[in-house]
């Protein structure tokens, strides 16, 4: 079980590499530039919805970036929620 925190932008090779290694028992949290991946109708959104992990997005970062009307398959989190995720997942891997 791994919590992947993805802060790279969807065009970055690190972003694509993250998706190669995400498993169904994992969580994936979009932060920073990673929130652009959840843009509705984008190819990156489709790839995320397909990756099998529990999907999360840091709401303050999404709002700051203007990423709105995000799919209901993403759980919006505040910072306390981010901490809770790290409590649940023994490994955290930052993709940046």
């Amino acid at each position, binding site marked *: 079980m791994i919590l992947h925190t993805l802060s790279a932008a969807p065009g970055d090779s690190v972003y694509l590499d993250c998706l190669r290694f995400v498993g169904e028992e994992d969580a994936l949290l979009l932060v*920073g*530039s990673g929130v652009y991946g959840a843009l509705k109708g984008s190819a990156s959104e489709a790839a995320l919805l397909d990756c099998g992990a529990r999907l999360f997005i840091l709401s303050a970062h999404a709002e700051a*970036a203007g990423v709105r009307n995000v799919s209901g398959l993403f759980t919006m989190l505040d910072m306390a929620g981010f*901490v809770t995720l*790290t*409590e649940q997942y023994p490994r955290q891997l930052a993709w940046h």
Partner: protein
Amino acid sequence: MIYSLLVLSSPLAGSSARTAADFAGAVLARGHTLERVFFLDAGVQHGAVSRVLPQGEHNTLDEWLELRRTHSVELLLCVSSALRYGMLDENEATRHERGAATVHPAFTIAGLGQLVEAHQQSDRLVTFGG
């Protein structure tokens, strides 16, 4: 739980710049212990004492100082990264004949052994990149 943080990203790195400091505050608010924040690579710039920001922009330094003041969180800057980025405390500034310190005194210059120790002693080591 005991948490430690590894901060690789610069305070200039967009929205991620605040994430580590905000996360640190949330860790403590949930009742966990935050033992150590280890700044490495570009992350050492969080220790800069003299950053001047435009009106309305947030200086993460204030958050780090608050964490240090209220919870005695250790703020460590990796020595090799700190030197490269010109982040010098009084000792290093004198040793390398560089004039004034550029690091806020709330931060301590330290070796990677402190990161290794934090990893062994903490339940969670959370990394913040760019």
